[in-house]
């Protein structure tokens, strides 16, 4: 029998032979050359091994859609970098993007399809793709109208296929894309408010780089909000040069965005919108409003009793005056209504108030724009749309009612990511067939899935993305496999297409593509046709040859316009931003603290908890790693006799968690802060049994009639347990003074 | 080496002192007398200094050798393979700590080597004789000068209270204790 002799082994052996040869030769030459080959006197850094090959691709570690470069050697990816030419990333990449390699090479990845025979408590057994796909195909064909797809983030090309799949299945469902991270982005509410004020229901484009004075209303735009890399570049632009722009942050918890701001205002949570009103009133009073502002906008602010309101919010009015003056007098002011505003039941009013402040100072079309349309117009739709909370809850209700026969978990980990009170566990128990497509074992798949069909990571599959909010350059980013698949996995689109083929009927009609590559290729051609049809004349790729276009599209990492294309904002002034709507208060004596939950800078809602790099990278404000924590004001700490690391019981109406305290200088009394992200039970070695799932604390309060979750309105009580945990963090002392000599 | 050898056992330092003086007056050179004692007596009591040793030479050699080695290591090697480290010249004064330590090390080791050499390796006409273990007292070994009569010396020593032992006892002991002390035949 021939021994199995893989290529790598061959290389190893030939390398050994070569080394032996060198030694043998040098034996003759006395003080031979083998010492010279790699003398220890030279450091290993002096040596470089081979030449790198770079591939462009698209980062899918968050929904922002940065273009990346992947550095590979010998078929292995070893570094991700920002694509310097890509309009969003421009050569930069955030920590989460960097960690994409650990999604690709995660040691806990599923190595192939797995099925479990009967009960959901049975262990999974490996199966092959034919059998797995057969199950999928059968399920699709047998359950028309009773199929649902869930995902926390579905890349545009996947969403499009998934939507078509559901369309073919009938039943009027669209893929459910929702979790707390997406809720914290507040896309839907921002879009709605933009419709109200900026005249188009589209995400606004905040050109921070062009601004000279920015007020951020609860926007963690340097961390997790919408498109952090792009905003960070903008922020760098803002701060650059002699005319260093200013940044004021209005938020109850000092995020790392607020930490680098010039001023931090901490009104009680949910009352940031009122600060916008106060600033607007001051601008009016001082006659600093922009000359070209819509006349009626003044009326929104004129009724505000600024000084009294400031006092009520506990803010220094004189300071607000200074801030307002600087803001309004600056050449290019910009007020950003952040995702944090969507956390409260007055979110629409608050966002409108902030956008109205922009109108007052003349920000529209100077620093405030709308996202450009997709390059191929509607041809590529549907693109990913975030569902509302109510839609998601409705899906769960349907499941509980037994109206869903097949749940396809295309991405994410609903059991972990959705608040416990929504009852995913209960709902999933009622679903006869749950297929999970995550490349990793997840809490959901471990507990509820019947079949696991692991998909490729984004570095192994094809795709495209049309970023939203993009930049002023309309873009279609290329995603391509940069390494051969590490395990026996398939791309999700391929799985869906294969399932559709097996199911036949409408499925095959609506999903006609042979495989993912053909699908992507065709989509690119669609776009190219749209371009050549004359809608956009300039662009990064100037060719009409589809072959060449596709090649260059992959080579440069996508197509993007070379001319800025900013849809004009045509302000619509609302009749009022009712002050009453802004007053949000749910005093509850039994639960004295408002819970401010926020997406973890590195772990997001928890999808990155299985990546060691991201677990080990410290949260910038607390420097905590590998853990959950609750941030409390030093005053409260004193009152409860708590110090950092003491374990407290945090209880809301929905749940009770025990978690270590971090005494945080940057959080107002009455608020406690908790990051999302930990508390997994079956998400691989790096994530399991680590910290708590803070999302479970949330009460299910809705934002008015918008159908969104007021995820910042939960109230909790805090109780000392007497236990202590040496909270793992980088800072070693509670000493807060500055080092000497700085 | 010619001439008879006399072995005398003398009790007590006073007796030895007397015997030594007697021998010296009889004209037996100090070099022909070997005195074996279990503790050191002041030379003034024991017939004067017998400073026939090259130990200082060894010590000096060690000193010079250690110094050279120290200089080579602390200056030479640094010049041979100059690597730059922060805030220090290639040869900086602190490296002379090494020179000092190695100088001392050389000195100490060579002194010991000298000591061993002198005790075990160096040729010494009277050193081949061993004291039998059960002899109580101090042993005086006298090599009779060629121009003297052995009997006279014997008599003189006996007069001073020495017990003259037959040479056969010593030879037997020498064979028995071969591995311990002596490998060489007395010439």
């Amino acid at each position, binding site marked *: 029998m021939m021994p199995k002799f893989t290529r790598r082994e061959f290389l190893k052996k030939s390398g050994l032979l070569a080394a032996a040869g060198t030694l043998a030769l040098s034996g003759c030459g006395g003080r031979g050359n083998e010492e010279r080959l790699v003398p220890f006197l030279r450091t290993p850094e002096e040596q470089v091994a081979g030449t790198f090959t770079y591939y462009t691709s698209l980062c899918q570690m968050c929904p922002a859609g940065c273009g990346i470069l992947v550095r590979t050697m010998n078929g292995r990816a070893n570094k991700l970098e920002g694509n310097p030419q890509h309009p969003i990333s421009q050569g930069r990449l955030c920590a989460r993007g960097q960690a994409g390699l650990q999604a690709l090479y995660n040691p806990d990845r599923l190595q192939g399809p797995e099925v479990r025979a009967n009960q959901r408590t049975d262990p999974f057994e490996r199966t092959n793709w034919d059998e797995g796909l057969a199950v999928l195909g059968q399920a699709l064909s047998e359950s028309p109208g009773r199929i649902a797809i869930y995902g926390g983030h579905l890349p545009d090309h996947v969403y499009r296929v998934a939507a078509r799949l559901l369309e073919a299945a009938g039943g009027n469902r669209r893929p459910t894309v929702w979790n707390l991270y997406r809720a914290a982005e507040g896309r839907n509410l921002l879009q709605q408010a933009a419709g109200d004020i900026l005249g188009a229901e589209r995400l606004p484009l905040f050109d921070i780089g062009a601004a000279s004075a920015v007020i951020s209303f609860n926007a963690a735009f340097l961390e997790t909000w919408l498109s952090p890399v792009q905003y960070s570049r903008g922020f760098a632009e803002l701060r650059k040069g002699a005319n260093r722009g200013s940044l004021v942050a209005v938020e109850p918890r000092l995020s790392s965005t607020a930490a680098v701001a010039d001023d931090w205002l901490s009104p009680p949570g949910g009352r940031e919108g009122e600060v916008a009103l106060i600033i607007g009133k001051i601008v009016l009073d001082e006659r600093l409003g922009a000359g070209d502002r819509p006349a009626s906008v003044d009326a929104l602010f004129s009724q505000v009793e600024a000084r009294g309101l400031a006092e009520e919010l506990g803010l220094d009015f004189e300071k607000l005056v200074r801030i307002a003056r600087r803001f309004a007098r600056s050449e290019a002011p910009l007020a950003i209504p952040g995702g944090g505003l969507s956390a409260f039941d007055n979110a629409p009013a608050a966002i409108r108030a902030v956008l109205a402040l922009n109108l007052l100072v003349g920000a529209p079309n100077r620093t405030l724009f709308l996202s450009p349309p997709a390059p191929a117009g509607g041809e590529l739709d549907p693109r990913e749309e975030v569902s509302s909370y109510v839609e998601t809850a409705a899906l769960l209700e349907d499941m509980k009612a037994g109206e869903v026969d097949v749940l396809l978990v295309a991405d994410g980990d609903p059991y972990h990511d959705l608040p416990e009170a929504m009852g995913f566990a209960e709902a999933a128990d009622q679903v006869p067939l749950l297929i999970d497509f995550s490349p990793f074992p997840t809490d959901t798949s471990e507990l509820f899935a019947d079949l696991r069909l692991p998909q490729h990571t984004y570095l192994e599959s094809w795709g495209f993305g049309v970023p939203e909010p993009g930049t002023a350059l309309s873009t279609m980013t290329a995603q391509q496999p940069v390494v051969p698949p590490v395990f026996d996995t398939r791309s999700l689109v391929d799985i869906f297409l294969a399932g559709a083929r097996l199911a036949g009927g409408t499925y095959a009609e609506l999903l006609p593509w042979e495989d993912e590559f053909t699908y992507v290729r065709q989509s690119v051609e669609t776009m190219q046709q749209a371009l050549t049809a004359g809608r956009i004349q300039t662009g990064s790729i100037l060719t009409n040859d589809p072959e060449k276009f596709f090649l260059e599209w992959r080579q440069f990492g996508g197509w993007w316009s070379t001319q800025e294309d900013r849809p004009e904002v045509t302000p619509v002034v609302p009749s009022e931003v009712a002050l009453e709507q802004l007053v949000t208060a749910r005093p509850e004596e039994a639960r004295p603290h408002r819970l401010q939950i926020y997406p973890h800078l590195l772990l997001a809602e928890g999808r990155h908890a299985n990546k060691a790099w991201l677990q080990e990278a410290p949260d910038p404000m607390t420097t905590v790693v590998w853990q959950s924590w609750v941030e409390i004001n030093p005053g409260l700490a004193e009152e409860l006799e708590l110090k950092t690391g003491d374990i407290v019981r945090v209880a809301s109406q929905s749940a009770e968690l025990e978690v270590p305290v971090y005494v945080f200088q940057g959080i107002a009394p009455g608020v406690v802060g908790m990051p999302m992200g930990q508390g997994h039970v079956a998400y691989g070695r790096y994530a399991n049994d680590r910290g708590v799932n803070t999302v479970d604390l949330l009460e299910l309060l809705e934002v008015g009639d918008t159908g969104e979750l007021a995820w910042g309105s939960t109230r909790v009580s805090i109780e000392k347990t007497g236990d202590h945990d040496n909270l793992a963090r980088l800072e*070693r002392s509670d000493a807060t003074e500055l080092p000497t000599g700085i | 080496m010619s001439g008879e050898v006399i072995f005398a056992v003398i009790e007590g330092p006073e007796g030895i002192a007397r015997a030594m003086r007697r021998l010296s007056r009889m004209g037996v050179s100090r070099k022909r007398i070997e005195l074996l004692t279990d503790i050191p007596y002041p030379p003034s009591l024991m017939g004067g200094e017998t400073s026939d040793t090259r130990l200082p030479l060894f010590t000096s050699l060690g000193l010079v050798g250690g110094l050279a080695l120290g200089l080579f290591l602390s200056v030479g090697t640094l010049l041979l393979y100059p690597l730059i480290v922060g805030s220090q010249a290639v040869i900086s004064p602190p490296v002379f*700590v090494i020179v000092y330590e190695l100088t001392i090390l050389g000195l100490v080791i060579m002194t010991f080597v000298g000591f061993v050499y002198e005790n075990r390796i160096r040729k010494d006409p009277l050193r081949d004789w061993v004291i039998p273990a059960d002899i109580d007292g101090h042993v005086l070994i006298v090599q009779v000068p060629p121009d003297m009569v052995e009997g006279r010396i014997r008599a003189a020593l006996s007069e001073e209270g020495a017990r003259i032992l037959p040479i056969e006892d010593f030879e037997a002991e020498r064979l028995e204790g071969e591995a311990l002390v002596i490998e060489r035949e007395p010439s």
Partner: protein
Amino acid sequence: MARLPNWARLPRYSGGPTRGLGQEAVPEAERQLAYEHQDERHEPGAYSTLQDAVADGTIEDVPPTEEELARMDAALDGIVLRSMTRVGAGYLLLAAVLGMGAASLFGAWLYQIFAGIGVAGINRPVFWGFYITSFVFWIGVSHSGTLISAILRVLNVEWRRPLTRGAEAMTLFSLMVGALFPLIHLGRVWKFYFMIPYPNVRELWPNFHSALVWDLVAILTYMTSSALFLFMPMIPDMATARDRTTGIRRRIYGVLALGWRGSQQQWHRLHLAMKVYTIVIIPVAVSVHSIVSWDFAMTTNEGWHSTIFAPYFVIGAIYSGVAALITVLIFVRRGLGLQDYITKFHFDRLGLILLAVSVIWFYMFFAQTLTNWYGGNPVDRELEHLHIFGAMAPLWWFMVVVNVLLPFFTLWFKRVRRSLPAMLVITILINMGMWIERFLIVVGSNVRNHLPFDWGDYTPALPEIIIAAATFAMFAFLYVALSKALPFVSLWEVKEGWRLDKWRTQGIVEGETEPAQEPRGASPPPSENRPEEVPA
């Protein structure tokens, strides 16, 4: 006028006939003489009372006769050689227990090597912990022996004679123990040879700018010197052992005796070599601990970067060394039955030295602390605050109490100095304090630095604790094991001392430290000793 009883010099004869050791059985009359003053002898302070009586002339110090001296010699040989040849069950048990203790060190070390250095409690910024603390401690203890014995030799202090061997052995053993620690603390001990200067394949020499290389060389030098310093004067005693044993022992001692016969030449060379060693070893000892201190003082770290460190460490080393010497002598005296050679008088003198050293040490410690405090460097201030009032205050105050107050308020008193239990407690406490002092320097300074973000703390982990504790067992084991092999009292030196004492009293030889005294003995020196009177 009463006569100073011979037992004040005479070793207690405490056994039956010692055939096989080449010794005559002691006659009954002799035994009677030995026991004559037994009660008196066991009375606390009797010995010193007698010494005092000699000093003020109420008791006459009559030199022993030659016969008495011969008996004293034989009894001393007997005690020492018997302890080298007799192995009892108690001894074996003790050796086994200590041996297991010492073995646990290597067990823990092996575990650390295979598991990774991380099983120790060290971290960033406390990169050095128990290991370096122990290293400094043991190197410090090693200073006792050589330094005490060399200085006393240089000054010709006669009472040193029964002590030197034990002190020198202590130096060597604690060096052996201490030198293990730089190895134990290495991250990759299997690459230790990187530090040895030889022309290697890596074409690289060690970096002689590094205080650690100084350490290596200095400890090598010190270890060699002190080993030879211990061994050289042992050669005549090895010869004695050779002559009085049989079989394998005889062969081994024969080899170790290096052909010693006791000829005048050899004695002369020995004296010469010892003179060289005695002079040379004092600066070596000083340099070794200076260099150990420079491991710290050469850095930029606050709490370490101090010019006083070299003398401070040296005096600290002598301090803990003298204390350890007293502790060890108490045990050795008991274990080897040397009560008549190592007497309360010795403890009295050593106690005085200890007192003096403790005061000097306190002076240095105070100077160091005061300048740190007064200098106002924020990190120094923080460190002092941490030590004196902060988390490390219990350690610091313990150290101050046992290293400053305790010796000062006890060692002034003769009764304390002559009470062995008191001395045992005091010296053990002093060494605990000195261990803590090293801990406060090594770890206590590393926990704070210029960047408060990187302040740290340190909790020793089990392997570190085991290893640090096991070194004490190892040290004791070396002592116990080698006490069966080596003569722990320098036979010839003690004997020489008795003779010199006698001759000085008789004015035959001049004392080297004191002027020649008038012969005080009742009987004049034998006329035969005068050269001019020697009959023709």
